[in-house]
């Protein structure tokens, strides 16, 4: 029953990240028909998708906004540690791969902000929540990339962990999120293979390269395990998210799956995982690992990791320093309402079919005809279409 949607209250409650009862969705309030609730429950029970216009419980919406926003923020903040090596990548091929990857991450961020917008919350609201620290991003990005091998370790371990986390989300009960995840997972798997290959090259290179690779794995292994969140016993949102079909497996289940994948891969790389207790358990068929230092996890989550302040500072600076640009785009679009593509978001995205204005080969170069039609400025791709890596490799 679409009429019972509670869009505005949700975005308001999302603003401070806390659960604020809204006028429309007071517990037991008669605004929601039983039929709508039954429909929602039936969709979830039969493993079908909830779409933006379907009625949904306010807490379901809030949970999704929090999770999708955190995911989007992670993509955008996650550009920083890898972007740190863009200008120093040691070969033109590696540089191109890394640039395509970082570009993919920006695309993923855009998708995910768009998915969150279907829940009635705007991108700039979410950005404000990020900058004020009221919404989080994955803590893994609060660790620094100190050497080139870290780029490989992030690809192999961090993207590997992200994939394990995200593949079940392709079946998430909320349609727009599930669909975004399908594409994102495909691209992440390219990134992981590229990271693995980078590390493999170093691990089979000179002594110094090999040492660099081992050092990176030593530093990234434990934080990667923490990416799955606290142990099941302490995970506050898990049970309800499972019931709603947002989450499919517990934190510990996913963590185990990741360790089971990574341990044999480390052997192929010829690198050691920094856990003396790591061993294969014949009986269960799983790799057993040592105790995770949860005090470190909590410290980083609380804002005291090596890079928390730096990451937010960079993001804040980019937004603040770009404000005059965005204002200009808005002002221009107001003055030129007929120029499609006058506002932001009209840049050609990778994979989009470009329609250049100053057309190559179709009009005399630089001639008045070539630019006579301002409407021709519109370039497709206003919706986020990432996938530089995947498109290139397809």
């Amino acid at each position, binding site marked *: 029953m679409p009429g019972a949607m509670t869009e505005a209250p949700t975005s308001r409650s999302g603003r401070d990240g806390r659960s604020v009862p809204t006028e429309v969705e007071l517990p037991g309030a008669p605004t929601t028909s039983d039929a709508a609730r039954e429909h929602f429950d039936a969709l979830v029970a039969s493993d079908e998708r909830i779409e933006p216009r379907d009625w949904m419980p306010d807490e379901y919406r809030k949970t999704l906004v929090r999770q999708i926003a955190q995911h989007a923020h992670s993509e*955008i903040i996650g*550009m920083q540690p890898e972007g740190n090596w*863009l200008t120093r*990548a*040691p*070969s*033109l*091929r590696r540089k*191109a*791969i890394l*640039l*395509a990857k*970082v*570009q993919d991450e*920006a695309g993923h*961020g*855009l998708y995910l*902000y768009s998915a969150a917008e279907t829940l009635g919350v705007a991108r700039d609201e979410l950005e404000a929540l990020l900058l004020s620290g009221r919404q989080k991003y994955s803590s893994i990005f609060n660790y620094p990339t100190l050497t080139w091998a870290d780029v490989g370790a992030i690809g192999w371990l961090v993207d590997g962990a992200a994939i394990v986390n995200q593949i079940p989300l392709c079946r998430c009960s909320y349609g727009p999120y599930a669909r975004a995840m399908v594409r994102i997972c495909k691209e992440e798997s390219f*990134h992981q*293979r590229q990271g693995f290959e980078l590390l493999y*090259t170093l691990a089979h*290179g*000179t002594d*110094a390269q090999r040492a660099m690779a081992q050092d990176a794995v030593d530093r990234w292994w434990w934080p990667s395990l923490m990416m799955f969140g606290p142990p099941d016993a302490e995970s506050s949102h898990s049970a309800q998210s499972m019931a709603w079909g947002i989450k499919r497996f517990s934190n510990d289940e996913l963590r185990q799956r990741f360790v089971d994948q990574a341990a044999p891969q480390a052997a192929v790389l010829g690198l050691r995982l920094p856990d003396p207790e790591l061993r294969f358990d014949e009986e269960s068929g799983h790799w057993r690992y040592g105790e995770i230092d949860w005090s470190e996890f909590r410290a980083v989550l609380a804002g005291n990791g090596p890079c928390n302040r730096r990451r937010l500072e*960079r993001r804040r*600076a*980019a937004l603040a320093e770009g404000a*005059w*640009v965005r*204002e200009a*785009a808005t002002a*221009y679009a107001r*003055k*030129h309402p007929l120029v499609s593509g*006058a506002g932001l*978001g*009209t*840049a*050609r*995205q990778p994979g989009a079919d*470009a329609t*250049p*204005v*100053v*057309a*190559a*080969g179709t009009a005399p*170069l*630089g001639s*008045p005809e070539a*630019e006579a039609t301002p409407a021709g*400025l519109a*370039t497709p791709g206003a919706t*986020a279409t*990432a996938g*530089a*890596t995947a*498109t*290139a*490799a397809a």
Partner: protein
Amino acid sequence: MTADAASGHPGMDGARAPATAAPGSEAPLGAPVTSPGLGDEPAGALRDAARAYVLGLGDDALILSHRLTEWVTRAPALEEELALANVALDLLGQARGLLERAGQLGGPASTADDLAYLRDARGFRNCLLVELENGDFARTMARQLLFSAWQLPLYERLRHSNDSALAGVAAAGAREAAYHLDHAALWVRRLGDGTDESHRRMQEGLDAVWPYAAELFLPEPFEGGLVLGALVQRELAVDPAALEPVWSATVHQVVTEATLEVPTGDWRPAGGRQGLHTEAFGFLLAELQSLRRTEPEASW
């Protein structure tokens, strides 16, 4: 990115292949280079001049790509993170193809990586325009407008070169340059005709980079007009001066539509094509080459 530029590319290498590579034929960089299909290789002085010319074009693409990459995580909007990275990636692809070709033409055989990572500043032949510091977004867009308005007609001509490697880069590059020009022109208009602040910044940015464009149209500083003429005749080069009218018409139109003033003045710095760069260039190269030079012979 255009689909055809990406075709035939193996899965592990997510980046685009240089436009010169035939589908499926991309050799790992560093592998011995085989003939790209030239029936009639230039020789002697002509060959050296061809190398220098192609090297200059490759360096232009490489260095501008580097500058644009510096914007990543600092762009004024997420859409621009994508767009700037996309332009940088296009230029990097062009650089790979052009430097690879330059390495085959005269001098000691070199790979594209050798040329990018192991040359000193005095050996780089890029124009000064592309190495200028980014400044604010307006200055970066002004630089891009002036560059792409030159590169598009250049590639449009070189795509007909009978050097198949050069023609391949130029054909793909022309499509890319058209987009780069489109993107930059749109921003110059938006900023020029946006707010008071953006207008002021756009004019300042344009004024700052404008003098450097003159270098694009100077005669190539090798062996006098005869060699250049021979290169042009063999479709290995375009006479720089021939591009100026087209460039000028494009740029003037955009600047006028953007409600900006075309800068005046007769200071025309040059020297990039002779390896005489700005002071900032050494820092750029130091960053670009630092890691590779720690183990130049290693595989990365």
